[in-house]
């Protein structure tokens, strides 16, 4: 059965275990800025807001890349970077409608969540249950979209405040 990742902002305590776990499994070290999942932390209102690649249908990142460095697996939706073609311009960062893409702090190439090939390591670390790896159904798909839309609404609200 297909599975999907539920990302619930209301249950996020902002601890960053997920980002740290991601950097560990991908690079054998701890650095939340290397996490393919990012927690936007707003300390004054004690908010943690998760941002990560959603394997979305529209995937504007791919078209935005002037070098054609990004490709997408049609079945899983997972985006891959061709390291040789990527010139670190960051067009994909700006294009992403879910504000999910960051450049790697060292190699300066974009990082994409690949769901760890179907067994996301971050989920095991999220004890409050803000990240859940569940069977795909109409209900869970709806829930995923609902969670995402409330995260994006919050994100826009925060950015407006800053501006």
């Amino acid at each position, binding site marked *: 059965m297909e599975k999907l990742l539920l990302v619930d902002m*209301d249950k996020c*305590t*902002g*601890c*960053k*275990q997920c980002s*740290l*776990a991601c*950097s*560990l499994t991908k*690079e*054998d*070290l*701890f*650095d939340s*800025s*290397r996490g393919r999942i990012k927690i936007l*932390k*707003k*300390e*004054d*209102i*004690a*908010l943690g807001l998760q941002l990560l690649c959603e394997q979305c249908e529209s995937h504007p990142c791919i078209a935005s890349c002037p070098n054609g460095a990004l490709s997408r697996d049609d079945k899983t939706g997972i985006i891959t970077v061709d390291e040789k073609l990527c010139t670190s311009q960051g067009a994909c960062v700006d294009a992403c409608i879910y504000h999910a893409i960051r450049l790697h*702090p060292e190699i300066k190439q974009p990082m994409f969540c690949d769901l760890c090939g179907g067994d996301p390591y971050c989920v*095991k*670390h999220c*004890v*409050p249950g803000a990240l859940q790896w569940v069977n795909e159904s109409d209900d869970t798909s709806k829930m995923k979209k609902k969670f995402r839309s409330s995260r994006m609404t919050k994100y826009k609200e925060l950015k407006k405040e*800053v501006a």
Partner: protein
Amino acid sequence: MYGHQGKILHVDIGTGKTWLEDIPEEWRRLYVGSRGINAKILWDYCKDPSITWDDPRNIIIFAPGAVTGTTAPASGRTSVTTVGCTTGLYLKSNTGGHWGAELKFAGYDHLVVHGVAKEPVYILIEDDHVEVRDAKKLWGKDIIQTDALLKEWHGEDSRGLYIGPAGERLVRAASIQCSLYHAAGRGGGAAVMGKKKLKAISVRGTKPVRVKDPKKFAEVAQEMRELLRKDSGAQSLHEFGTSGSIGAVNELHAFPGKNWQTGYTENAHPITGQALNELGYLKRRVACFGCTIGCHRYSTIEKGPNAGIASGGPEYETFGALGNGPGIIDTEGVLILNEICNRLGLDTITAGTVTQWAIESYLRGVLTKEDTDGLELDWGKLEEVKKTVEKLALRDGNLGDLLGDGLKIATKKVGKDSYKWAIMNAKGLEQSNVETRSAKAYALAFAVNPRGNDHLMTETFAEFGASPEAIEVIEKVTGDKKWASPHFTEYRAEIVRWHEDCYEITEALGFCVFTSTAAYGVNPDNMARLYAAATGIEMSEEEMMLTGRRVCTIEKAFNVTRGATREHDNLPWRLMNEGAASGPLKGEKNSQEELDGMLDRYYELHGWDKKTSWPTRETLEMLNLKFVADYLEELGKLP
């Protein structure tokens, strides 16, 4: 380096000079990290008893733990160590939040601040860039304003640690706030910062933390995480926060009210974590860096005349000291008082305790209306308590100035036996809200605590036997499950001694002490294995625990240099001489006789002299602390 970043950053804010020191390999074996290495550094720089809290030679040290920055659950805490202002003795305080992890990611395990600035300054740390900067624009600002300015100047991802107006005014109850709503609150560390004219430390770090054996490390971290996931104590902390236990504590008649004259309050429900949830004040459950429990709260008032009040907490201690204590059995009332403390930078425990002392002193006619600046103090009057707390933070008027010095000084100024209802022991720190008359290991732990009588140098919650895991700890320490009851005085010394070591290594690694002494997912065995995976330094459980005892002994010896003796290891007069008001242990006291029995055994277990309480040379040398023995001998303070 693995586990640690390997660097101690020194900053002299008087001269602006900064320098780096490598952490000696030997220190990683002997003291592990954070609280442990801080103790060694404080000893080295400040052992001379002529260095008082306000002496320019006093230093203040900030340190995340040996595994802070990793996925080890709840390992993001920071120890702050200095010569304390409230007691004049050793002070270690500890804070959650996200600042300490950021310091580690900037590449440092310890930040040592030396000297005194002429004008207000703050320290800016951005990886290798370290600078002492002018803080004129921050001085006088509250915590919220200070954090906002630092983030405006140094980015939303920077993390701040700061003092508020209370710390600037050298108020003993002042708290070092960290990531806004977390605090190294106790003992007046904020007044030490205030004296140095150090307003804030802003940190941004981008360097990874590496461990020696990532696979093994992840296995041990997972073991801890899964134990905590199943632990009923940890679950309750997430669901209801630290204040979730108030109902049960009240049922035991152990919830101090009216300056410890009551232990039970009819309908205490409004001042519980459960009420925060039910009444809709709880906005979010919040975690410190890397914490899988998330016991912190963010609470808001959204409707009615108090709408707009929002802050972190309140914690158990705040509902106790500023709620039940002064008789404010009102959720919004405590939310308001809590918000003032977080905004102005006050430790809610001391703020509440001095307020209760003032109320009782006024009711007894010991403080006059002139002393209270016209306030007619009484139990249950929110407006008066609010004004008292604000006066305290700002040292405003006669009352603010009197309370601002803390009970140790205030009781001397006021006289008239007012020490008898001052809830502090001989060291002079206001006691946290644990009814030691009905919990005997707590009583001993509070009495011997080097920083004064509270639960934050060791915690013996296991003596209540509230869970199978707690009972197991008691069985392991005493040999028999039957001792898992707080009413016994037998084996309390053994229980305290074990928890001291366990608590110390928990903090040295950067863990929250809830993980090992309130919930039971982290223990000496898995900490030793985790430390080995992180650093490559192999230690048995026993060797790891011995590092804890070594550090506790340095902390004790530090106080000996300042004249501490057996007489300082006691409890507040009221608790030693007046019986508990009600409940199963009605009339129970912490009598001197009872305490003496436990102290004798405790000193014996430590290898300390029973008459003076001073560590012997033999004990010190067994712990590789010959340098401590030599110095104590020089001072004539070796038994």
